[in-house]
């Protein structure tokens, strides 16, 4: 386990801020797409790419890389922005999001951008495929870890729970699911649309190890993820409590930002807020 120095933590917080700015820029250029989820997962993706995962941006197909699957493909802008900010491709390419001929499809596609590991968008399918990858690693004695980011609402899909059962059957301790627990979905609060609670107890009942943390606190998330990854004999889930739209004041906590992008004026306000926050992080370092 690498210790997270104060300097490194500051670097990661700045990086998460850059990831958020990239999300806003790509969304306003695209003119469509999802805002709230990508913003709230910027800290988790920064922690994964910046600290937790074994990966090589200059060799995306490195066979021993950790696999990161984004099950809820609609929050792709956070993954794209994280990849760009960690060196997979130039940040300018983010402006091609959702445009004709782009590698940055509205929902991620492995064939066009192989390092996204799988094609996602239809919900509830990522953990199932991650289970297959983790099982494949076990069968071949490979050491890579499989991380699957899921939304909370996709826990309403039956297939997700088929995967939860299967991963437990095979004791896949090389598999960590991360739940973006922001309590929102298109039609409102998850607890109104189709209640998920008690979510942690559900996973425990399915024989998983369960961890909960603040998904917008990079240090807390990294500490939790390192603890989770050390589990033996069981798959693990991290329920990461997040604030939808995190980092942009007028989006925070408002479910109506689930599925729409900011307009130019709104984007400018968001970028100004993010810039001010970036300055604050650096000033307090």
């Amino acid at each position, binding site marked *: 386990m690498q210790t997270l120095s104060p300097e490194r933590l500051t670097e990661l917080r700045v990086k998460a801020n850059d990831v958020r700015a990239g999300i806003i820029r790509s969304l306003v250029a695209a003119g469509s797409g999802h805002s709230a989820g990508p913003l709230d997962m910027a800290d988790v993706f920064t922690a994964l790419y910046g600290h937790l995962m074994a990966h090589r941006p200059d060799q995306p197909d490195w066979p021993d890389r950790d696999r990161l699957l984004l099950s809820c493909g609609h929050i792709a802008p956070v993954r794209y922005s994280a990849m760009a900010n960690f060196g997979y491709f130039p940040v300018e390419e983010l402006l091609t999001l959702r445009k004709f001929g782009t590698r940055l499809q509205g929902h991620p596609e492995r064939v066009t951008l192989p390092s996204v590991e799988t094609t996602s968008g239809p919900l509830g399918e990522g953990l199932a495929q991650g289970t297959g990858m*983790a099982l494949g690693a076990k069968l071949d004695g490979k050491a890579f870890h499989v991380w699957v980011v899921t939304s909370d609402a996709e826990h309403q899909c039956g297939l997700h729970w088929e995967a939860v059962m299967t991963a437990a059957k095979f004791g896949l301790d090389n598999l960590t699911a991360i739940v973006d627990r922001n309590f929102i979905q298109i039609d409102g609060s998850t607890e109104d649309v189709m209640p998920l609670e008690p979510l942690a107890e559900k996973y425990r009942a399915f024989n998983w190890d369960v961890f909960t943390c603040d998904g917008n606190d990079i240090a807390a998330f990294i500490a939790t993820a390192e603890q989770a990854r050390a589990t033996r004999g069981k798959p693990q889930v991290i329920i990461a409590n997040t604030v939808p739209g995190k980092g942009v004041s007028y989006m925070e906590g408002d479910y109506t930002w689930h599925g729409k992008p900011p307009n130019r004026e709104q984007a400018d306000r968001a970028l100004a807020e993010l810039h001010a926050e970036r300055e604050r992080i650096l000033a307090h370092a």
Partner: protein
Amino acid sequence: MPSTTLDAAAQAMRLIDYRTGVELVPTRNGFGEGLIEAGTRDRNVLAICADLAESTRMEGFKKAHPAQYLEIGVAEQMLVALAGGLAAVGKIPWIASYAMFNPGRSWEQVRTIMALNDTNVKIAGAHAGVSVGPDGATHQAIEDIAIMRVIPHMTVVVPCDAVQTKAATLALSKRVGPAYLRFAREKSAIVTTDATPFEIGKAQVFREGSDVAIVACGILVYNALMAADLLAREHGIECRVVNNHTVKPMDEAAIVDAAQTCGAVVTVEEHQKHAGMGSRVAEILAQRHPVPIEFIGVEDRFGQSGEPTELIEYYGMGTRAIADAALRAHQRKTK
């Protein structure tokens, strides 16, 4: 006297001399045998089962290659998704259930995870067709060719007998990309031999003739051959019989050649007439060489319980029904 009743085309295909008697073996047995051999040839070949090891014939693989066998219970969507993940890290998973449940229940996963995502997953769709028999309509997949042939990048193979099902299983195991192998439950006639060539995407002429072309797939190829003999006997009409085992990518040249040579076509499949193999033949010929076409298959209905042969007859896929369709096609062409 020739020592065989077979014509030159059938001899070239190294067929059984089927007029003098045939052995009856379920096509699913050929899948089971082929899978064991595929697992021996390549240790990355996995068999993943959803609680139907015996009836899909994965049981033999389980005994022969226990370390390559996975059981995941009654979860067909999981079957596809798990296999997609395994394929993404280098495995060659075969997943088996009844065709009604996979790809029937799992179609969106098949489209997204296997085809759009381009993973090397192979589906074995067992118990296809009304010849499933007593289990009834819920278990009789007669829409599966339609939903699979419409998916880009998918390979769809419907072999004609148990021997060819084994050959197809081995061929698909070596071919990289998503694929669907469709086979049946009931015993059916073996007409091919181990020496019969098999190439995915290459249709086979099993009987030569120039009056009507009967283009068939699956276990009904035998009925097509019987119908051709009946037409020769009773009407002096000589049919070319094409074993069109690969529905996708279909052998367009063979289809066009059959239409050009015969001027009339009958398609034969144990599937809905709508959007099946025959519909694809019609799509090809409508563009490239329009001729009268008659379709043998289920006419926009569901199946029901009954004995397999009884159901094949009831739904109009028996030898006489095929011969009658060929006569209609022949009449339309000579009008």
